């Protein structure tokens, strides 16, 4: 289904199979394909209880009282807990501890947990929930993010003082963060009018991005088991075990070492498992009931139980000279963070610093805002603030190209950043950035055949509407669109998101064997495979076991920000290097090694520079295993200035270019994406097959945002919390893809690699939007694009 130009060779000498650059099978692959893989929701123990959560039916209300007596009286119920039963910190959070474990005082979104129950059967637990009486005084929801941000009379979602103000990036009100960026004349205080006067062409636009859901298939779930020592063991699907541990333990009033986490089978994440969901609840119930407690959300609850992608309202203005050189850009990006902080400040940081895209623009004024409302909380999702901005600036670039009569690719090439350029925070791009070449490769890739060249031009599966047979081909118009996006990779703004790896090399049953232990979450991205490859390459041993991830080893940071191959890969590499050094020293000490010889590990042996086996590892290590643990840190970054947004805040930049080809039924407003071409520079393809999978997945998720994926919220209430009405692309909506991978190594990164999970989610959406615009001539300033938008009818009214 997909044509791929992936790099063939790795450039690394290796006599060991399935190392870096190869595409070995993933250990969980067959199990997942055959349905045998155990996900977190499949866990079971003999005497376990089932936990369930009572949630607020109101988006905004004062909590007057919770009466649990009737629920407790129900036979089979073992515990019913409210905020009063939380022994430690009553609130938790990734950036600020502002989210109540169980609501007290006020509820701030519909679905906020108010009470929890453990019972011997899920049905009993459900009935117990029905018996809990909660008194609310309903308050007016704060649902308009613009009003929440800019109207001083808007009610506050958080009372003054309950969320920390640092006086710099957060200064109270309903703003979680405001981040300005000022460069060029704007840094000197110039007004937009002054710059506008100097431009030959000016384009302005208002853009909107709907609330996308990560739509992972495995709902929030985990099993908490009370331990002898008064602590608890939690088996859970998450993205970052240690950050969970660091939030759970204070709420339980326990020392961190009393709260031990192990990763359970993760059914997708995409950012939605960065925040806690059922973790503290399951532990509280297990500790109270003295029995293991399992909690599994159902699909509707899952839509309420995790953060979504921030919906965005964006205003852009771009000015250029007549020859197409960008002169200035102004952007205001308002991100609705919903009820609690989650990662909103960091998302704002990305939206601000990436706000006008990978273009050389001498004068920039960006203001990015993250807002509290009583809408569903928003936080991390693949692309993290850069996705929203990319739809804005790329729509602008197309509008500008149209005004200048230029090809959209030519305008982008003319203003492209490159190695040595500075992004708008002043940070210099010190790694290769072949943006112009990538754009041209996307433009010059062969076009898919036209409809008339298809074997059956009227096959409904090739037409907008698909098997619903709305059209036989009449009135279908083809459109082509381009977009490029740039994303910061790894954590930014001074965050030291280091990773830890423990590697052991020993002789087992007469052969050398490696064990790799990290706390890094395999969320489906294939990190377990990559860890094995790195160990094979570094230690020249094929037999590698990657232990289950848990908190018995140091933090590996989050499986997000495209960072794990870089960071945990880097840690595994560093630990392997340390092991190798000791092994080689041992060889020199014990083995028949010529003094001064250059040694390496290959094929399970210590070998000489000429490749001669000097001593087999099994022999050398017999009875003396070598184990090393290493932390890997990326280069330091810093917080940007609160006033002008300047500062080297990012570790690395990733880029993807997309070309979208679509067919549109212009009468019905239905779209069939015919083909997506992606060009991405990954520095180094560690596992080419998994890499292509990441780019395909990112592309599909971007297509989803362009055409169908939206959590529809009215007055703070999600109206489509199901996969019946939250639509994600099916195979008929996911086009054939042409994926072109470049490898321009980043000298600062392990193996020169560049995080690859996110960049494709940025450019895919605006490329599809541009293609639909090309086919229809409509402005289409909002994604997802609705049929109404294409045929020029008003959007559906949102009713609760």
């Amino acid at each position, binding site marked *: 289904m997909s044509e791929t130009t992936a790099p063939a060779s790795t450039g690394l000498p290796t006599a060991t199979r399935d190392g870096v650059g190869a595409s070995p099978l993933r250990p969980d692959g067959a199990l997942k394909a055959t349905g045998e893989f155990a996900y977190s929701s499949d866990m079971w123990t003999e005497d376990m209880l089932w936990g369930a959560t009572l949630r607020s039916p109101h988006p905004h209300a004062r909590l007057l009282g919770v009466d649990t007596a009737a629920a407790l009286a129900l036979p089979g119920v073992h515990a019913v807990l409210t905020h009063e039963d939380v022994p430690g910190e009553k609130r938790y959070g990734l950036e600020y501890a502002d989210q109540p474990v169980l609501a007290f005082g006020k509820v701030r979104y519909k679905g906020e947990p108010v009470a929890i129950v453990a019972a011997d059967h899920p049905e009993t637990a*459900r009935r117990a929930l029905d018996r809990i009486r909660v008194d609310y005084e309903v308050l007016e929801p704060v649902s308009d993010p613009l009003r929440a941000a800019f109207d001083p009379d808007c009610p506050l979602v958080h009372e003054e003082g309950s969320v920390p103000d640092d006086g710099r990036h957060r200064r109270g009100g309903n703003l979680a963060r405001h981040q300005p960026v000022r460069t060029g004349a704007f840094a000197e205080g110039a007004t937009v009018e002054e710059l506008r006067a100097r431009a030959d062409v000016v384009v302005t636009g208002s853009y909107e991005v709907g609330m996308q859901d990560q739509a992972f298939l495995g709902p929030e779930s985990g099993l908490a088991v009370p331990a002898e020592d008064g602590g608890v063991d939690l088996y859970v699907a998450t993205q970052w075990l240690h950050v969970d541990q660091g939030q759970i333990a204070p709420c339980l009033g326990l020392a961190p070492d009393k709260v031990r986490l192990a990763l359970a089978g993760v059914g997708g994440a995409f950012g939605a498992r960065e925040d806690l969901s059922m973790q503290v609840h399951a532990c509280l119930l297990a500790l109270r009931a003295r029995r293991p407690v399992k909690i599994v959300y*159902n*699909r*509707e609850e899952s839509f309420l139980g995790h953060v979504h992608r921030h919906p965005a309202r964006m205003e852009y203005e771009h000015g250029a000279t007549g020859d197409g050189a960008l002169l200035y850009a102004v952007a205001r990006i308002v991100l609705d963070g919903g009820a609690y902080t989650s990662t909103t400040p960091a998302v704002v940081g990305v939206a601000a610093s990436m706000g006008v895209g990978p273009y050389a623009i001498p004068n920039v004024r960006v203001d990015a805002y993250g807002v509290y409302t009583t809408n569903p909380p928003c936080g991390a999702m693949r692309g993290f603030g850069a996705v929203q901005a990319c739809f804005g600036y790329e729509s602008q670039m197309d509008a500008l190209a149209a005004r200048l009569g230029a090809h959209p690719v030519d305008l982008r090439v003319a203003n492209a950043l490159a190695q040595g350029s500075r992004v708008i925070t002043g940070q210099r791009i010190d790694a290769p950035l072949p943006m112009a070449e990538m754009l041209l490769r996307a433009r010059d890739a062969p076009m898919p055949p036209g409809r008339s060249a298809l074997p059956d031009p009227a096959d409904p*599966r090739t037409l*907008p*509407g*698909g*098997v*619903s*047979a*709305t*059209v*036989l081909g*009449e009135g279908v118009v083809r459109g082509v669109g381009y977009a490029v996006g740039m994303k910061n990779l790894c954590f930014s703004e001074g965050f030291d998101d280091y990773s830890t790896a423990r590697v052991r090399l020993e002789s087992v049953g007469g052969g050398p064997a490696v064990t790799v232990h990290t706390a890094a979450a395999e969320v489906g991205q294939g990190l377990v495979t990559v860890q094995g490859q790195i160990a094979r390459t570094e230690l020249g041993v094929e037999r590698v076991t990657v232990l289950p991830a848990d908190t018995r080893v140091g933090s590996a940071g989050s499986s997000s920000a495209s960072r794990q191959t870089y960071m945990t890969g880097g840690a595994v590499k560093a630990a392997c290097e340390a092991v190798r050094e000791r092994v080689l020293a041992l060889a020199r000490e014990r083995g028949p090694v010529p003094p001064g010889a250059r040694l390496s590990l290959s094929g399970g042996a210590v070998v000489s520079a000429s490749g001669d086996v000097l001593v087999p590892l099994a022999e050398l290590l017999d009875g003396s295993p070598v184990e090393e643990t290493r932390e890997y840190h990326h280069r330091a970054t810093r917080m940007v200035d609160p006033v002008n947004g300047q500062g080297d805040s990012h570790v690395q930049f990733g880029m993807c270019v997309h070309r979208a080809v679509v067919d549109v039924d212009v*009468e*019905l*407003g*239905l779209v*069939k994406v015919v083909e997506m071409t992606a060009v991405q520079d990954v520095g180094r393809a560690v596992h080419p097959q998994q890499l292509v999978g990441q780019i395909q997945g990112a592309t599909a998720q971007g297509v989803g945002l362009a*055409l*169908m994926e939206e959590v*529809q919220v009215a007055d703070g209430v999600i*109206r*489509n919390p*199901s996969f*019946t*009405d939250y*639509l994600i*692309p*099916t*195979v*008929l*909506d996911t086009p054939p893809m042409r994926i072109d991978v470049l490898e321009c190594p980043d000298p600062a990164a392990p193996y020169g690699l560049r995080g690859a999970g996110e960049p494709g989610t940025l450019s895919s959406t605006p490329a599809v939007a541009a293609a639909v615009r090309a086919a229809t001539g409509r402005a289409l300033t909002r994604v997802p694009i*609705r*049929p*109404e938008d294409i*045929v020029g*009818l*008003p*959007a*559906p*009214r949102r*009713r609760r």
Partner: protein
Amino acid sequence: MEFLSPATWEEALAAKSERPDAVPIMGGTDVMVEINFDRRRPPALIDLTRVPGLREWRADGDGVRLGAGVPYTGIVDALGGAAPALAAAARSVASPQIRNRGSVGGNLGGASPAGDAHPPLLATDAVVELASVGGVRRVPAREFYLGPRRTARRDDELIAAVLLPAPAGPQRFAKVGTRNAMVIAVVSFALALDARSRTVGTGIGSAGPTPLRAPGAEEFAAAEFDWEGGAPLPESAVHRFGELVAAAARPIDDVRGSAGYRRHALAVLARRALARAAADYREGGARCA
């Protein structure tokens, strides 16, 4: 929740008459979703999957008697000629897994206005066969849908079968959804031309509290259509037909689309269906089917 599992049709009817509040379950693709989402807690389920014959169809006079439990897959595979509009609708339902279980009986039992089987049944003047311990009733589909999810079926009755008349002219079905497969209709439309009676049948889905017909459009098209030669209809007539179909709808704004779009899309679907049906008619094949 009680689970009744009758082994024969008679037992099933007896169970339903004893427990009129019991919920029949066939493919379960609606019932199980409702139970899982906690929207419904039936006191009892009557499992119909063991009842012989429900999953079978057979010729019945000129037409077909379709057992209430025949899954959509069976309809797609076998009834493309005998019931073209219904087969096209069946093809558009959900995913292969759901089509392997979901049935027309279940679609009628739930009577969601978005059910894909309804517009073809309305357009082709199909008949629903209802049964109880007291006997069998035959209710035309056109009299079956009474209100939002309310039908002519009494609480003590089960749906036994649907009687599909032999096509006497071209039939069309199309549905609009915002995804190219596995989507609940934003709006759907079925059209059937009957050369014998020189009538036109329509069915509208997802654009009102019940599945609907467009009687004004039907009469207009029947009068305008060239029943001798199937000459292409003038542009203005096709357009008028679309308007009349759209006017018969009673749509609302909801998560799947706006009322305005639904009317607009219905008009487009209706125009396309009529123009194509006319072309099919000229080509002749369907006329003597």
